[in-house]
């Protein structure tokens, strides 16, 4: 007698909604137990982690500021992953975008104004796209596994950024510390709400809506999904796999580059040796948590930003290690992946024994 997983005739609609809820509840429950075992008041810890960040306006603002780049990148990645193109190098594409866009205020410090800001944004997008085109070409022409090439290129991009910020693009008036000159008001994204919410949040919302429209309503979106699930069916339908690879890489590279330049033109305000504390990797979790759907990604991104805020608060309030946040995120992803399988499969108890190699011989 065994328990087996058996494919459902059609995917379960109810599980599609229940699964993320179940995953979140399971994660919270596991956390509750871990805190109990560690001798920390679990109710207080969970409150500090998930409720307290929402109780103050400045905290909500910070949450949004943190969520914007992550969601932007995750939207781009969702196109890749839907098409079974495993781009895990968004972190590098982000750095490339930051470098490309920052070139303008660094090389032409006197240029300011809305036209310059627009140019910087476009350069950032272009930089990310160009950098993402590299692994795309390597995959299309040479069949190189994109998981590995994109990751290797992250290291290359970060090292190049380090070189530029420390070397040729260093601020001459900065006592030789590794920052570029700080950008002027006319070279930064304007603040549109509160103290720190910038125009980038509008870009994020636009990206979410456009992504939804593309995926749900356009032929291209359809092609992407079909090619992801069944390359043979896709080629029968006349969809070019290579074109899809390039397209999805360009979309995700562009959005990652946009996130990068928005960080540099926004919260950071100059070019430094590191412009992202791992947004490109967090976005991978968000993309999967949001099940590769734009609205899901929006919610997942906010949830993950909440967990970051909560983690920082927990460090100050109860001395909880900052690694706890990473553990929570990994655990949540595991639960989501496990619960998701119940959309397509169900458990069944089977009574006959499995065929044995011995009986076959």
């Amino acid at each position, binding site marked *: 007698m065994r328990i087996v997983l058996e494919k459902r005739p059609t995917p379960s609609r109810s599980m599609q909604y229940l699964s993320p809820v179940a995953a979140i509840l399971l994660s919270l429950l596991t956390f509750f137990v871990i805190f109990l075992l560690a001798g920390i008041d679990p109710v207080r810890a969970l409150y500090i982690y998930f409720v307290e960040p929402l109780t103050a306006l*400045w905290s909500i603002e*910070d949450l949004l*500021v*943190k969520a914007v780049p992550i969601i932007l990148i995750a939207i781009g990645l969702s196109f890749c992953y839907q098409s079974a193109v495993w781009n895990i190098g968004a972190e590098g594409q982000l750095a490339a975008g930051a470098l490309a866009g920052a070139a303008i205020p660094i090389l032409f410090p006197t240029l300011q104004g809305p036209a310059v800001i627009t140019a910087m944004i476009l350069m950032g997008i272009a930089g990310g796209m160009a950098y993402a085109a590299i692994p795309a070409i390597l995959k299309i022409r040479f069949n190189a596994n994109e998981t590995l090439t994109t990751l290797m290129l992250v290291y290359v991009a970060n*090292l190049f950024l*380090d070189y530029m910020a*420390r*070397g040729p693009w*260093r601020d001459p008036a900065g*006592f*030789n*510390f*590794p*920052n570029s000159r*700080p950008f002027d008001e006319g070279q930064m994204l304007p603040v549109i709400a509160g103290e720190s919410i910038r125009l980038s949040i509008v870009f994020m919302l636009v990206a979410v809506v456009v992504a939804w429209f593309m995926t749900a309503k356009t032929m291209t979106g359809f092609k992407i999904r079909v090619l992801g699930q069944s390359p043979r069916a896709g080629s029968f339908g006349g969809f070019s796999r290579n074109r899809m690879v390039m397209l999805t890489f360009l979309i995700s590279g562009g959005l990652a580059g946009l996130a990068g330049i928005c*960080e540099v033109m926004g*919260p*950071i*305000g*100059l070019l*430094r*040796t*590191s*412009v992202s*504390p791992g947004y490109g990797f967090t976005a991978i979790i968000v993309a999967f948590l949001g099940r590769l759907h734009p609205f899901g990604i929006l919610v997942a991104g906010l949830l993950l930003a909440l967990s970051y805020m909560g983690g*920082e*608060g927990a*460090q*100050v*309030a109860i*001395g909880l290690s*900052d690694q706890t946040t990473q553990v929570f995120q990994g655990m949540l992803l595991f639960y989501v992946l496990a619960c998701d399988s119940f959309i397509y499969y169900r458990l069944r108890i089977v009574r006959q024994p499995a065929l044995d190699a011995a009986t076959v011989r």
Partner: protein
Amino acid sequence: MRRYLAILAAAAVAAGVATGAEAADKLKACWVYVGPHNDGGYSEGHDRGRLMVEKELGDKVETSFVENVPEGPDAERAIERLARSGCGIIFSTSFGFMDPTVKVAAKFPDVKFEHATGYKSAPNLATYNSRFYEGRYIQGQIAAKMSKAGLAGYIVSFPIPEVVMGIDAFMLGAQSVNPDFKVKIVWVNSWFDPAKEADAAKALFDQGADIITQHTDSPAPLQVAQERGLHGFGQAHDMISFAPKAQYTAIVDTWGPYYVKRVNAVLDGTWKSEQTWDGLKDGILEMAPYTNLPDDVVAMAKKTQADIESGALHPFKGPVIKQDGTEVVPAGGVVDDKTLLGLNWYVKGIDDKLPN
């Protein structure tokens, strides 16, 4: 008139009650670290200082810290969070926290901020730094005395002024004993990457160096030295427990006395924004006990240390000649603090080029 006096009296009483109430609440002193509080290196040095504050002023002060804060917008948020949670004085301990600290200090004029190793200040933002280069000079002298190959290996992180100061001071100290002393430099592009630091140490030893020193934070290079029967210097922390036979001495960051002094200043209301750059004589750094050395070298090191503390010797005393041959200060002069803070050149005798 009487009504006016009554109001004044009431206000005075209210003020007295208010300050009385403040004194009853403990002052909260908070720290922000770029690495783990127990990293065995730089951040732990600051944490030791925090613990000293807790020990000496524990009845009047409570402390807390945030660790592993990446430099950038996350730092701004962490510092702001501390300000909002009632910290009366906040120490941000890494250079990369400079701009975030400036921004938060502007938003919270009643909170006192102190930034380590930076150069921007404000009425409520002080800066503090340690003359690590004094220790480097002593190390250079020891290295020149002890090295049979006349060559030391130097493992460094990034070419910022503080690091360049260290290299130059080390060389000047070495050259005061052996004018032909040489140094080989490897940049590992990280403050803390034990495996890479170990590899760098191995490479330097393989290339003929028999002493290593470092401006990175892990004890890995010293462990390599111990394994090979060679020697070196520890950084930020007495690393003797990692390499009992290999460590000659270490520069130990002792921020404690400075922290106690500044927190006391907040407590008695005399805190002012200052730019402090203290050295061996002020106790902001110490040399770990001189070990694995013959007595005459120990005596020399101690004498140099005493001379630096008394002001008789300045590591950057003239003549100081740049790598390209130009003289920066003639004999009798001293390189001034401003130049040191922005140092971006090697002294003559170093063959490598500075990666800038």
